[in-house]
């Protein structure tokens, strides 16, 4: 169960060339980066894990998660997860057509109200829709129906994430949509877990990059006549950040492998909880080690820290997932607690 090195190499090269410091900066100023998206779409990466019959590349979920990890590592300012792993998955699973452009989803904000009418029309409001203004279609799952609705039919109120990426409010009033019955296993809950898994993969990449950036910065920055990385108090931040990078990467990889095998609810829930907490600790450590430089726009640390603060609360923050994992663990009883830690979803 591995990912072809070619995918890692190709995606790394693409992101390294396109997602430069100034390009990410410009994307934020302009609310998007069409040129980066075009280069990404050109390779077929957005649809890598979707079946060929639906217009995808027929790769595995692990391939897609590896691309997302790298998108996080390079802070790619594009809807890398939404178009394939989330919205594309919803549409392809339901047998609905994939558009050529960007697909996004309603991530399930508590204030959302969306209904799919018997006449196949969509009404209501979806909040914090990633890259909504750039999407061609919004994929919706509601009451056992899957709908593909054109974003051109929406009224859009523009908002941004903490990283300055579009998170728009889309309102529909009887918009004509393609609607079908949701197949077995395609539910709002399943989408929420997939969303969480996508964020964990992005976070694993971003924490790793942030941790590496901090090692190199503290080895260059000199105070009291030597690199600040020589001070034990600073080394502590480096070690803690690298642990959180390793922990999150392991959580992402383990959850991804289980998801590729089948039901992975426990692994995904645990991974998102671990990643959320790791993001909190690692951003704190890396910012502290950078001092004032890390607080500036000119230095790239914020590309990663602000994305981590965004992804940390998307598709479930600590409270949601600690309650999910906690109630699942408590339900196993004392004798079942360790078997759950060691065996995961398979013992549920």
């Amino acid at each position, binding site marked *: 169960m591995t990912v072809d090195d070619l995918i890692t190499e190709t995606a790394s090269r693409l992101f390294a060339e396109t997602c430069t410091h100034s390009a990410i900066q410009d994307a934020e100023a302009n609310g998007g980066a069409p040129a980066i998206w075009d280069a990404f779409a050109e390779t077929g990466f957005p649809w890598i894990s979707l079946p060929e019959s639906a217009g995808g590349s027929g790769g595995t979920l692990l391939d897609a998660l590896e691309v997302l990890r790298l998108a996080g590592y390079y802070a790619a300012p594009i809807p890398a997860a939404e178009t394939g792993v989330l919205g594309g998955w919803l549409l392809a699973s339901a047998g609905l057509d994939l558009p050529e452009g960007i697909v996004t989803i309603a991530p399930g904000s508590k204030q959302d109200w969306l209904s799919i009418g018997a006449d196949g029309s969509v009404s209501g409001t979806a909040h914090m829709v990633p890259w909504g203004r750039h999407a061609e279609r919004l994929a919706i799952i509601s009451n056992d129906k899957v709908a593909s609705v054109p974003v051109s039919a929406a009224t859009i109120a523009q908002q941004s994430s903490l990283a300055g990426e579009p998170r728009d409010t889309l309102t529909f009033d009887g918009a004509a949509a393609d609607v079908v019955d949701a197949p077995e296993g395609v539910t709002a809950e399943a989408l929420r877990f997939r969303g969480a898994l996508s964020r964990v993969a992005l976070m694993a990449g971003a924490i790793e990059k942030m941790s590496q950036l901090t090692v190199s910065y503290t080895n260059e920055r000199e105070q009291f006549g030597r690199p600040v990385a020589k001070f034990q108090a600073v080394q502590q931040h480096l070690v803690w950040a690298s642990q959180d990078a390793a922990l999150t990467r392991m959580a992402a990889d383990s959850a991804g492998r289980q998801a590729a095998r089948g039901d992975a609810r426990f692994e995904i829930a645990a*991974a998102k909880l671990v990643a959320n907490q790791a993001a909190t600790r690692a951003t704190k450590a890396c910012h502290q080690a950078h001092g004032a430089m890390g607080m500036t726009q000119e230095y790239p640390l914020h590309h990663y820290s602000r994305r981590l603060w965004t992804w940390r609360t998307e598709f479930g923050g600590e409270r949601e997932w600690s309650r999910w994992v906690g109630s699942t663990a408590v339900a196993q009883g004392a004798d079942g607690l360790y078997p759950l830690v060691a065996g995961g979803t398979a013992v549920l």
Partner: protein
Amino acid sequence: MRFTPTELTSDELALQAEVRDFLGAELPPGSHEPGLGMSARHDKAFSKKMAEHGWVGMALPKEWGGSDKTAVDRFVVVEEMLRWGAPVGYHWVADRQTGNIINKFGDDEQRERFLPAICRGELGFSIGMSEPDSGSDLASVSTRADRDDGGWIVNGTKIWTSGAHQNDWFICLLRTHPLEEGGNKREGLSQLLIDLETPGLDIGPIPFLNGEHHFNEVSFNDVFVPDENVVGQAGMGWNQNTTEMAYERGGPDRWLSPFSTVEQLLRETQGTDLGDRAVELFGEMTARWWAMRNLSLSVSRLIDAGEAPSIESSLVKEMGTRFEIEIIEKLVELVDDELTLESESLFQRLLAQCVLTGPGNTIRGGTIEILRSVASKGLQGLPA
């Protein structure tokens, strides 16, 4: 640094089931006073039973009484024993590290003499590293061995020696070659195997903060140690000792100490409404244990692949022991009761014990400060 995700194979899962069956029969849950991970009781009869299943020294070669099993097989057995709170104290050190060191650096005569007895669960080892003036700066040890006919005469003192009053043998790091002015203090050190009953060797307790006898001071007064008890090459002990510490770090013993306490909390609250805060805490602990376990398991796979993951295991140990302390703190916040070791509740007794012994978790086997220094050099590509 790279932790590769891995899962247990069907053979490894079968071993796990076998160990669970054994523990279910030997120590039915609720029937025994569980230990806190590797601080568990010494129980020679239990060590012997484990050995009969081939679970002591299991990764050692069959030729010397072992089972030719892998580091991952040992991980599977050890994680079950520790989470169960089984009394593994007597064979713990010999199984985790001393057997490996003798196998790796010793000669056939030493292997013949020690390994089969270790694998039968009949030899308990203590470790002699720290001294009154030498702790984190381990290379500064001053216990010395002077050349004598056919062996060495040892003088000096070792402290914090766990279980020396219960164990049989001592693996001791000491200076066999005098340190010259300006010399490298990592050179001239050796590892010696010393019978704890040798004349001239005195063992006295250093009581724990709560009066328990665990630590000892071991003093040497002209103790004769024969040449055949030097492990590997005299003077090259530092590198051997560093290898030994890689076995000490990164395993389940560094993140499972409070598990039996948490499990017992769940047992004693079964059927009651725990409240949101407790449920969330169970969620956090379970998720972290899952992720920590995967990291730790991947270290064992690396060892089986012939690698020496010393940076990885330092990172795991530093993180795992801090996690243990965090759990204890959160449990205390959660239960909000006055704790006593005499409580009628087993959970409360265990938690009281966790509070009293917890600070040692981030000290034993190398303080977290030293581990950070090792890990940090690794991150920056410097020699440790």
